């Protein structure tokens, strides 16, 4: 028998999509049965009370969670989010319900051994409810009490050899697409760069020293599966410089309808016969492709590497061999000053381990931002306040047309004093000898 009646939530058990309500109910049943005879370290009825407090929110259309307060593990500024229920008497099982973020492996491949160990730990010391995964990418263990935090951290680090993720004004848990592990479009080893940088910047990750949060994300190509350009202060997006490799025989096979275009991605509707001219050549944003019925050619100089032709004919076209990445800086969600997309800073950077070139750029940006950034100002906002030119300057980057969509439309140019012959100190007396007052 359920502890709380949940008539509204029960409506969310209907329909085909996996129901999180059914899932929490099965966890509640598991804890009530306690098949492994655990001495649960937080109340066994936590899942029941989670459903109860959620049902109350469904009735009242208001949340019942309070501000976190400061909880965490010794020496770390992030990784734990404090959370208390504002109806603790009614729902004692979730009166204290803190979140623990666990660092995920880049690309999110797991062994069942690792997952089962984590489940065992969370069975004993937490609510049994998780988020797989939080929106930054970490494993989120949802709901435990303060005395369990150090115990969890101890078991994670000593027995599972894994650390907490980041939160707060520090480096957030970086994330990467699955890259070369299973994608032919990956222009560099996204998982390795993500892993190496995460390891090299552990201090920045755990101990807040920044004006505000800072996120890295790594996409292997311009398709952008982890949305680096839109979601990270520092986006590394794979790209290449030389020719797209063309297998003309396979191109012909696509044109003749022998191969499934788009790797089958549009198979759910009859779109008519594949039309190479209309669907690929005419849609190329670089206007750089030609198809004469027998041969496809690409004028590499004008290719903007949008991926469309490669996505459309993955068996015929392959990314070039001179590979690296572009770096875009300053993306953020709308709070407070409006959403920002990453702006292109470095068009091409070498991406071979140990990634010194990339780290050099990161550290130059950090030095500047830690010096100049205001409290709770994302680097994208600092860029807006102090100018893109300033970012170029601190990263020793030469201004070039690829940095812009169009040049400025106003004449309010700031010159550097040394750019103007004679500088800004002038002699008013001399001026007056030439011009009366």
């Amino acid at each position: 028998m359920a502890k709380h009646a949940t008539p509204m939530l029960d409506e969310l058990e209907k329909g085909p999509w996996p129901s999180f309500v059914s899932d929490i109910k099965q966890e509640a049943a598991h804890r009530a049965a306690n098949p492994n005879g655990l001495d649960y370290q937080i109340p066994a009825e936590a899942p029941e009370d989670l459903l109860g407090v959620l049902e109350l929110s469904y009735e009242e259309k208001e949340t019942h969670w309070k501000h976190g307060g400061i909880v965490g593990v010794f020496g770390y500024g992030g990784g734990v989010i404090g959370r208390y229920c504002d109806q603790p008497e009614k729902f004692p099982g979730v009166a204290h319900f803190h979140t623990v973020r666990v660092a995920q492996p880049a690309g999110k491949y797991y062994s069942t051994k690792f997952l089962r160990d984590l489940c065992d730990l969370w069975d004993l010391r937490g609510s049994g409810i998780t988020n797989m995964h939080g929106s930054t990418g970490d494993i989120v263990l949802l709901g435990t009490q303060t005395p369990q935090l150090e115990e969890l951290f101890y078991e994670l680090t000593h027995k599972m050899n894994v650390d907490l993720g980041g939160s707060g004004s520090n480096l957030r848990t970086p994330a990467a697409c699955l890259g070369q592990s299973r994608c032919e479009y990956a222009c560099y080893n996204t998982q390795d760069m993500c892993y190496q940088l995460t390891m090299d910047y552990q201090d920045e990750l755990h101990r807040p020293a920044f004006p505000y949060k800072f996120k890295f994300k790594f996409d292997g190509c311009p398709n952008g599966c982890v949305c680096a350009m839109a979601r990270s202060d520092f986006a590394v997006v794979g790209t290449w410089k030389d020719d797209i490799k063309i297998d003309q025989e396979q191109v012909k096979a696509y044109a003749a309808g022998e191969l499934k275009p788009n790797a089958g991605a549009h198979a759910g509707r009859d779109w008519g016969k594949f039309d190479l001219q209309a669907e690929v050549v005419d849609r190329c944003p670089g206007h750089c492709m030609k198809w004469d019925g027998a041969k496809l050619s690409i004028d590499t100089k004008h290719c903007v590497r949008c991926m469309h032709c490669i996505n459309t004919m993955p068996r015929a076209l392959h990314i070039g061999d001179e590979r690296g990445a572009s770096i875009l800086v300053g993306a953020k969600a709308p709070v407070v000053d409006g959403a920002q997309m990453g702006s292109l800073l470095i068009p091409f950077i070498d991406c071979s381990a140990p990634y010194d070139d990339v780290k050099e750029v990161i550290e130059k940006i950090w030095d500047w931002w830690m010096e100049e950034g205001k409290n709770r100002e994302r680097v994208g906002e600092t860029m807006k306040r102090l100018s893109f030119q300033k970012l170029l300057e601190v990263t020793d980057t030469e201004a070039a047309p690829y940095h812009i969509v169009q040049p400025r439309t106003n004449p309010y140019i700031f010159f550097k004093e040394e750019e103007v012959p004679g500088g800004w100190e002038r002699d008013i007396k001399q001026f007056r000898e030439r011009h009366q007052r």
Partner: protein
Amino acid sequence: MAFISSGYRPEKPMEGRISDIGPHKYDSYFPPVIAENFGKWLYHEILEPGVLMHVAEGGAKVYTVRVAGTRTMSITHIREVCDIADKYCNGFVRWTTRSNIEFMTDSEETLAALKADLATRKFDGGSFKFPLGGTGAGVSNMIHTQGWVHCHTPATDASGPVKCVMDAVFDDFQNMRLPAPVRISLACCINMCGAVHCSDIGVVGIHRKPPMIDHEWADQLCEIPLAVAACPTAAVRPTKVEHDGKKVNTIAVKADRCMYCGNCYTMCPAMPIADAEGDGVIIMVGGKVSNRISKPKFSKVVVGYIPNEPPRWPSLTKTIKHILDVYATDAQKYERLGDWAERIGWQAFFEKTGLQFTHHLIDDFRDPAYYTWRQSTQFTF
């Protein structure tokens, strides 16, 4: 309950302490076929919705079965995922960025058995545990945030509306009939932990009433200057009022300057903002992050308010389904929702979708607003 020690000794926190060890290395848990062919993949094909085949240079193949996961997930469910992975996938499994789960195998027979097994698994309530889909030109799983399940600032729930929207567009999760991929996401307040600002369809929780002020507690619960500084529109100022016959230090909010962002509440618990009537969601459309054909772009607000209608959010799901259907009918192949809206023009977008245009949809937030007004005589009647 007897406290079980992990070995940690609170009186000596630094003794044997391990810190800064980071995540496990990414290649610790590669299935053998992934490890062997790392960096050697040649091409891929979507064999059917939810099933991918990747082929490597040497001819090796890996089949991936992609199934929906709910982001809020119990350990009982994760253990079931492990059972499946142990049975069919040598004990390996992966999650995608959009909370899908991927089972991989290099054998066609295993693939068939795996698919058959997954199809039979249902929750007691009747929903599928592991529906296949989320590939190609269809709708993938929704990215979402915490909502009433765990956060203090939400203007709507997250898991619930996501369940309802995904039920409504379930066919398009399991099909690939759309002109291009459609990514839907939901954030339960404008902090947008889910970064929905570049989605084809984004749902964002909003408040519509300025915060209340708990004069009795303001000075005790809050650093008043922090609350003042937190407000992006300078609507908050410190003040003194009479409360229970006493003069107290507190806060005043200039209501007509407030755009209900809740930043002040995050700084100061004595300024609660949630309100059953005030809260609800907006719908934003037309964002993308891929560089394919057109450049990445932000989503735009096309519905300025929909009330919270728990438990099934009927107005929200109906509107999303409708936008999706009009797009599916009218857009050209390869056009993302935003590309389509830009080609036909936003005027035509409102005509074709029948969505009501109201003053709420005109940007008035700071400088960038100006660039979204029509500075031309080119429009249609």
